[in-house]
């Protein structure tokens, strides 16, 4: 405050009484407004102050620093030259700020507010002020206009509009010293906004902006004044000096205060920024449509509504994010902001239609101060009404304008004259003849105002606190490792690039890249969001420093390749990029005959561009295209381009897929990956949009959207990847293209295209660099799921290794039981029971009728007898079978002695059945016939071929109708009559992916009880194929124990993993057996250990008695991640025809499952009745259990 006043005083000395008055009034007002938060404001104010004070030079610097905010730099520089320019630009700057952040909106609002204040204060007194008031009002009016302009300019890079706006305003209002003053103020605000941004570098600490603007206004009425004077500096150099002096003081102050404050804010802000960014990025595509739609609706409203909508949306979303922080906001600030916005809204309500007020309300809602505002609004309205009786109507304002013009002379006679010429210079130069129809329209691709990033208004205080806490907590975690430093350097580099291209960090592209960098970093080093905050802060500070130090060469170069149809302007675009004629162009002839490159610097950035001959769209010309593209391919072999620009004309409607052959050819030759970092460039961007279906011109945005969509879609089709989303950039090479003051070519939507295009190109290069640094897998947009298999799934491999496998057997051994040990074990006991069945007395089965006649006891006895006999019979059969097998074995061994004989046999066997293909054995057919069931519908024949081929049925596949989606081929070979070799493979293909599985196995017996088996597996895992080579040797050193040791090597993708296993099978007795396995798998220094234990207890005479209990335990350790699973299964026959199966499993995570199943084939009704309560009970228990385990 004091500063402000002091300045005001100083200013007074500086001669302008009227202005001083105004300032004073303002100051008073502000004092009222700001009451609460003096301190903070002071600080901020000082900052601002300092910025302001550092005079023109400083201004320029800031400008340049702020650059991106909206070509602000240029503007500011101009400020030095002519007051009005400065004003205009500052205004624009303001708008830009708005564009990027709502905060800026507030700023402008505040400007309005300040005017209002002024008006009020003036109303109170001096006649002179009357004039001022009018001016103020005019300002309001102009503000309105300005806003419309802004809105236009919103997306544009402001600079363009500045000229126009300036011109308009000036012409209408006639401007004057006052106006300048006001604008000066605005500028201050704006500037402060900029400054703040700059200091915090980041997305928008709207909060700060808020505060600052408020503050500035509060104390730095003077400051504003100073700005004003600065602007006028060319006119009055004395003032300048004074200001400079003042500036000196303030600078010091600011440094002290700011140092701490701002940084905290900023860093914390960053975090938010990222938060805010997320939606931004996502919205990217959707944004444009939204905007356009809103534009459509409000065509006549100059997009104002569209803007409003956006902002509101933004506000809402932001609010959501930050509601939690709202509480922390100092009440004072709150109110003050509120007031200002309210005040702001009043003039707008009067003068500039409801849109403004809407906007304000949007803001207000964000502040949650609607009620107050409304009331106050009315209040202020009234005041204003009284004060300046008839400002309400625009016409009247105009008359007033005239008045003011007259009055103008009073304040500073020379002021006007000087201004006018300046104006003339700056704004009047009629824009050069443009290509047809350079209508203005809202832009589309340009960084649409990302409101998302804004209203940190409320959050600031809390943010600060949080941040500090954060700092404290994380203070020790400051291990910035090397990569992070490098990443930081990349970030700095990118910021510098952006800066050189005149883009602020608020530019969408920039913000996105930064966000992605942050994300990459986070992915990499697993520490939360704060990384981003710090790094960004530091990066931007560093970038600023480096850039301020002068254009020292930047360690960055980018190779851009240009592809496209002939005649779309490839060479011309290159010429435009370098701003000189590097390649000759001719509208009618093929200008470029061969591939050539050119190296040049753009804004101090080394750029290499490869120009290629034009491609032809016709299908019959594709041969020619191929030739061209092959030559391109050869050319870029050594130095591949970082980015590919695919050019097309915006105004050519390549519907009917006329470009498809061309795009296909490109894809064929370079592979679809070429599109992953391709930018679609639409030349002739200044062409007028075609007439819509109803005869009225469609909006430029629509036009661009449509065209981009068409081209993108075509590329997607050509690349065969529907997820591609190539960024679009517009280009206009026409010599008559509209340019802004800096001579940059500007599109109809106000975008300065060159920086945008370059930035896009550089961004992708930067990201590639970062990726390379972080060794992130380069996941092109088309493949959101990069191959995860790169890190081989060790547990999976291990478990497949641990699985015990059967040794391959010779065909004659095929019938052997899975474990011939059983036989051996049984053998001894065989003989005694052998004849049991035969010894039984003859038994005749009863017929059903007879059965029915039996009494209960009889029946029971009968069934028992029957069962017993059946059992015995089966036993006998089994024994016979075994005997037969033994015989065969013997025969086989004898056959070995007489090989000729044996082979004959084999032949006989193989040839014997060769006559007819017969329907092969079916899979288990479902019990009831269902014509829809594929097993019933499709049968296959079993040929007598040695190759056993059959379809693979998947009843749960995508096609329910035909479940067969694979084929299985098997064959067993015999090599040299004693080595069995089995081959089986299976190919399945469903809609999405194809799976291949192939297994070749062989085993050799050497010596008694020793066998080695070798196998080769190939199977598809995800998109990769896994090749496994395994071998294991089995030693049966005793009857009861057999040990197996095995190794395996798996190649999956490009990772090789090796495994080792040991297995021991212990057969304690007939009923109990135990299998223990242990193994390890290693790949890339990663080791997984696993083991399993399986115990089996079974019925004395197993195949007949069905009781069987198994206990399985498996352990897996990977990455220190221990997984233990326990599995118990028991099967107990209950009674004659019931069976109870209980199964339970549990793992060390506490998840488990218990299931009990009871099968019964007798007295079903009873079983059912018994089951109901049982089930209920069990269910209840189960649920509890599951709940528990779920929570565990």
């Amino acid at each position, binding site marked *: 405050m004091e500063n402000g006043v002091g300045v005001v005083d100083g200013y007074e000395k500086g001669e302008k009484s009227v202005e001083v008055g105004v300032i004073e009034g303002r100051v008073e007002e502000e004092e009222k407004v700001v009451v609460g938060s003096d301190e903070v404001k002071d600080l901020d104010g000082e900052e601002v102050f300092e910025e302001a004070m550092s005079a023109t030079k400083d201004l320029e610097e800031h400008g340049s620093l702020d650059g991106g905010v909206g070509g602000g730099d240029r503007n500011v520089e101009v400020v030095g030259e002519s007051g009005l320019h400065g004003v205009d630009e500052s205004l624009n700057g303001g708008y830009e700020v708005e564009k990027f952040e709502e905060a800026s909106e507030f700023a402008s609002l505040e400007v309005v507010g300040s005017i209002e204040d002024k008006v009020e204060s003036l109303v109170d007194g001096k006649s002179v002020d009357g004039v001022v008031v009018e001016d103020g009002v005019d300002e309001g009016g102009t503000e309105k206009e300005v806003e419309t302009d802004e809105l236009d300019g919103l997306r544009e890079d402001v600079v363009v509009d500045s000229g126009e706006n300036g011109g308009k305003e000036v012409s209408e209002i006639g401007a004057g010293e006052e106006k300048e003053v006001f604008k000066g103020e605005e500028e201050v605000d704006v500037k402060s906004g900029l400054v703040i941004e700059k200091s915090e570098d980041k997305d928008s600490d709207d909060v700060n902006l808020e505060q600052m603007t408020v503050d500035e206004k509060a104390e730095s009425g003077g400051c504003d004044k100073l700005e004003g004077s600065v602007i006028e500096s060319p006119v009055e150099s004395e003032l300048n000096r004074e200001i400079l002096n003042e500036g000196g003081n303030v600078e010091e102050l600011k440094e002290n205060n700011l140092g701490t404050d701002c940084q905290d804010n900023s860093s914390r802000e960053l975090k938010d920024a990222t938060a805010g960014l997320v939606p931004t990025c996502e919205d990217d595509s959707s944004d444009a449509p939204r905007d356009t739609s809103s534009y459509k609706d409000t065509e006549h409203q100059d997009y104002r509504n569209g803007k409003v909508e956006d902002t509101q949306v933004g506000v809402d979303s932001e609010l959501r994010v930050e509601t939690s922080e709202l509480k922390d906001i100092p009440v004072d600030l709150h109110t003050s902001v509120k007031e200002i916005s309210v005040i702001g809204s009043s003039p707008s309500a009067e003068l500039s239609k409801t849109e403004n007020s809407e906007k304000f309300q949007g803001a207000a809602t964000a502040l949650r101060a609607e009620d107050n505002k409304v009331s106050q609004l009315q209040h202020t309205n009234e005041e204003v009404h009284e004060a300046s009786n008839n400002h309400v109507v625009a016409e009247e304002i105009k008359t007033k304008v005239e008045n003011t013009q007259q009055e103008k002379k009073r304040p500073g006679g020379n002021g006007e004259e000087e201004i006018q010429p300046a104006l003339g210079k700056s704004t009047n130069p009629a824009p050069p003849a443009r290509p047809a129809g350079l209508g203005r329209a809202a832009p589309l691709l340009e960084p649409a105002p990302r409101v998302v990033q804004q209203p940190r208004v409320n959050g600031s205080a809390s943010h600060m606190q949080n941040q500090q806490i954060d700092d404290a907590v994380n203070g020790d975690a400051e291990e910035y490792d090397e990569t992070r430093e490098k990443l930081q350097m990349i970030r700095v580099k990118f910021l510098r690039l952006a800066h050189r291209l005149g883009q602020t960090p608020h530019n969408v592209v920039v913000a996105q890249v930064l966000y992605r960098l942050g994300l990459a970093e986070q992915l990499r080093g697993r520490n939360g969001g704060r990384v981003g905050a710090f790094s960004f802060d530091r990066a931007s500070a560093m970038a600023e420093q480096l850039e301020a130090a002068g254009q020292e060469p930047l360690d960055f170069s980018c190779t851009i390749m240009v592809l496209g149809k002939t005649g779309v302007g490839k060479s011309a675009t290159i010429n435009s990029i370098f701003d000189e004629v590097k390649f000759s162009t*001719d*509208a009618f002839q093929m200008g470029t005959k061969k591939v050539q490159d050119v190296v040049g610097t753009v804004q101090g950035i080394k750029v290499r561009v490869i120009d290629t001959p034009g491609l032809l769209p*016709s299908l019959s010309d594709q041969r020619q295209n191929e030739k061209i593209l092959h030559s391109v391919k050869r050319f870029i072999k050594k130095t591949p381009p970082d980015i590919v620009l695919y050019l097309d004309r915006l105004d050519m409607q390549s*519907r*009917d897929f006329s470009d498809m052959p061309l795009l296909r050819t490109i894809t064929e030759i370079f592979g679809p990956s070429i599109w992953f970092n391709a930018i679609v460039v639409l030349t002739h961007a200044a062409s007028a949009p075609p007439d819509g279906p109803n005869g009225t011109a469609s909006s430029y945005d629509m036009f661009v959207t449509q065209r981009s969509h068409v081209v993108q879609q075509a590329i997607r089709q050509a690349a065969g990847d529907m997820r591609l989303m190539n960024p679009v950039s517009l280009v206009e090479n026409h010599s008559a293209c509209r340019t802004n003051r800096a001579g940059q070519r500007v599109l109809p939507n106000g975008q300065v295209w060159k920086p945008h295009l370059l930035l896009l190109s550089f961004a992708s290069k930067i990201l590639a660099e970062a990726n390379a640094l972080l060794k992130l897998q380069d996941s092109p947009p088309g493949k959101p799921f990069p191959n995860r298999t790169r890190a081989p799934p060790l547990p999976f491999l291990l478990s497949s290794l641990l699985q015990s496998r059967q040794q391959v057997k010779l065909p004659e051994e095929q019938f052997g039981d899975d474990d011939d040990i059983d036989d051996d074990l049984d053998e001894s006991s065989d003989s005694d029971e052998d004849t049991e069945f035969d010894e039984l007395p003859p038994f005749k089965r009863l017929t059903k009728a007879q059965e029915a006649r039996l009494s209960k006891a009889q029946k029971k006895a009968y069934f028992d007898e029957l069962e017993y006999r059946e059992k015995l019979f089966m036993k006998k059969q089994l024994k016979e079978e075994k005997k037969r097998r033994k015989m065969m074995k013997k025969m086989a061994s004898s056959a070995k002695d007489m090989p000729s004989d044996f082979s004959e046999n084999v032949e006989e066997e193989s040839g014997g059945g060769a006559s007819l293909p017969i329907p092969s054995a079916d899979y288990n057919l479902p019990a009831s016939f269902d014509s829809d069931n594929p097993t019933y519908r499709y049968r296959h024949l079993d040929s007598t071929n040695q190759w056993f081929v059959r379809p693979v049925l998947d009843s749960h596949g995508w096609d329910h109708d035909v479940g067969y989606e694979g084929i299985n081929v098997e064959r067993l070979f015999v090599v040299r009559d004693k080595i069995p070799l089995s081959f089986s493979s299976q190919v399945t293909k469903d809609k999405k992916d194809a799976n291949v599985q192939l297994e070749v196995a062989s085993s050799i017996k050497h010596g008694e009880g020793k066998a080695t088996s070798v196998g080769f597996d190939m199977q598809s895992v995800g998109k990769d194929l896994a090749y496994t080579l395994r071998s294991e040797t089995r030693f049966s050193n005793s009857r009861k124990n057999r040990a197996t040791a095995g190794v395996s090597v798996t190649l999956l993708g490009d990772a090789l993993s090796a495994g080792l296993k040991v297995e021991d099978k212990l057969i304690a007795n007939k009923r109990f057996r135990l299998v223990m396995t242990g193994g390890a798998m290693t790949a890339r220094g990663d080791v997984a250990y696993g083991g399993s234990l399986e115990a089996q207890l079974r019925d004395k005479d197993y195949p007949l008695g069905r009781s069987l209990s198994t206990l399985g335990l498996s352990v897996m350790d990977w990455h220190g991640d221990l997984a233990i699973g326990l599995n118990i299964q028991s099967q107990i026959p209950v009674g004659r025809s019931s069976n109870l199966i209980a199964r339970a499993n549990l793992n060390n995570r506490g998840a488990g499952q218990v299931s009990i199943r009871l099968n019964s084939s007798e007295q079903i009704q009873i079983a059912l009745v018994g089951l109901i309560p049982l089930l209920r009970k069990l269910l209840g228990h189960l649920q509890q259990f599951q709940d528990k385990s779920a929570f565990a």
Partner: protein
Amino acid sequence: MASQLIRDWVGINTFATATQTKLLELLGKLKQEDVSTLTILVMGKGGVGKSSTVNSIIGERAVTVSPFQSEGPRPVMVSRSRAGFTLNIIDTPGLIEGGYVNDQALEIIKRFLLNKTIDILLYVDRLDAYRVDNLDKQIVKAITDSFGKGIWNRALVVLTHAQLSPPDGLPYEDFYSKRSEALLKVVRMGAGLKKHDKQDFAIPVVLVENSGRCNKNESDEKVLPNGTAWIPHLVKTITEVVLNGSQSIVVDKKLIEGPNPNERGKFLIPLIFALQYFFVIKPIERAIKNDIAKESRPSWEMRDTGVGSRKF
């Protein structure tokens, strides 16, 4: 289509008065020459502005135009009559699809045109496309193949999007002449016109600007950057072409389907037959006879026949 109503040409009233007078004058001239019906066929690539041109000539939105989608694959005939004069304009869909001439579309167009007379062909392309390529040639070729070379006697090349500022600072007239020269060359090549035909086939080039943004002169006529009001100029050129004495193209079955292959070369059949008779059959017969005459029989054959007398 015959069933289509011939409506009164009210659209002409929407033109500026100056344009109207000129148009009526031209129509009068046509009527003097006993031409009371004029059928104009509009063809060209997709998206160049064929339908817009039709609408501009008619003066109303007779054909739907959408800037981003191509219209359906069917041709549309718009008929308007004014003071006993009937103007039929047939708008066709774009001929290019996926980088080649869409034969199907062409076929549909031909069927549509069956039993109609084409007085004028408007070949439409854009003025602001800088290059010509094979596609253009293919289209021209397709048109020529369908309707015969003669159609280029009745053809106009129409360049839309005429309101532009030429690149590289070329003067408008230069640009225009270069572009039209390039296009005409392609047309001549595509149509297979020889050098000496050049005089016969002087295909006029007309500029058109359909955009609502088209500049207007003081009498509210749409004018080109070179100052000519283009609608009257277009109609005037059409009139000139109509009156240049060449034949209109009547699309009949023969034209569409090409000559009947069964008829072709029929007269050669007896000739070939005669040739065969005299130069193939006769010599062979002669040769056989000769052979038989010269044959020397083996002795055992002689014996059987008893020619030789030998004692055993």
